[in-house]
């Protein structure tokens, strides 16, 4: 584990400390590989990373077509939870998986703190 990923782990730990957050991952936007993660429970971190990367990429095509440029924030709302993805620096994506009652506003604040420190 590198110093960078250790730093990420600490920052991600703050996100997973928010009530309703099941896990947070920093991943490579291109290939969806995991750079750092803080996942609770039995979720497969590689699956979260790959799906978040793919999701973000697909949504980016749509927002660009709409003239909005790449998204700063993507939220997939499902029946039993949410998946959030937003771009970090150097081609990374931050992904968060959470429960239904997740405080989206709080997650945004914490994720933005990570982005500032990246």
């Amino acid at each position, binding site marked *: 584990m590198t110093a960078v990923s250790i730093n990420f782990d600490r920052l991600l730990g703050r996100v997973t400390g928010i009530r309703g957050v099941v896990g947070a991952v920093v991943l490579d936007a291109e290939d969806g590989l995991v750079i750092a993660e803080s996942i609770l429970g039995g979720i497969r971190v590689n699956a979260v990373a790959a*799906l978040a990367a793919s999701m973000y990429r697909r949504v980016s095509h749509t927002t660009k*077509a709409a003239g*909005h440029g*790449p998204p*700063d*924030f993507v939220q997939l709302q499902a029946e039993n939870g949410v998946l959030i993805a937003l771009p970090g620096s150097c081609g990374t994506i931050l992904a968060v998986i959470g429960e239904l009652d997740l405080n989206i506003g709080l997650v945004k604040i914490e994720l933005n703190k990570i982005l500032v420190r990246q």
Partner: protein
Amino acid sequence: MNDRIRILADELANNPVSLCFVELGALLRKIGDLTGAERVLAGGVARHPGHVEARSLYGEVLLDRGKLRDAFREWSEVVETEPRDVGARKGLGYLFYKGGQLDEALEHLEMALSIAPMDQQVRQAYSRIRKELESEETAASAAPRGAGDMMLADSRGRPLTGGLVTDGRDVSEEVAAYLVGVSDEAARSARMLKLGNWIWITTESGNGCLHISKPTDDSTLVLMGGPGVRPAEVEMRAESAAKTAKDWMDDSRVD
């Protein structure tokens, strides 16, 4: 009642300018003799054009007889003379309601309520029309529009109704084409992460936000908010729009 009608009819025959025509007209209406009531009241009103109560009652009889235009004319003249006549206000409220002019109907009923706040009939009518007006406004704000910020696309990447315009450019077809991939990916991600079915996706960027949902299995709805529009606001509009879109899809299907 019939005796009273006979007495009043005799009195009116002997004295055509008697004001008993009002009571006679009301009683004839009560027993269902609308033709007789109309005849008596028409004669009385012609002789006493300033008798507001009689004219208001005459309007009701005209309405009973299906003569809506005449009733409208009568009540309109009544409120010009006596703006606080509750009967005429109620009547005009009803006629405007029947004509689909809910704003005008509400205006007359509001006036009637200000005069007779405990009138249950007016209160009920007012409440019903107000609700209808609100749901109309909701539907209008949620309905897919010709172009601009809302579009319904099919499951093969084609716009169905509405449209998206950014900086004067129609981006509907491009967005619709990419929506299929988004929808498929959302379904796959939600399933694999055991999140259940996906409900919607919202995106934010410097130039605005998008809200994507699936009103039906074979359609995708997109709402677009420009810079400064809050995503939560778009999300609220999207909920109503999805219901409208579902109805639209159901209505559009050929059985």
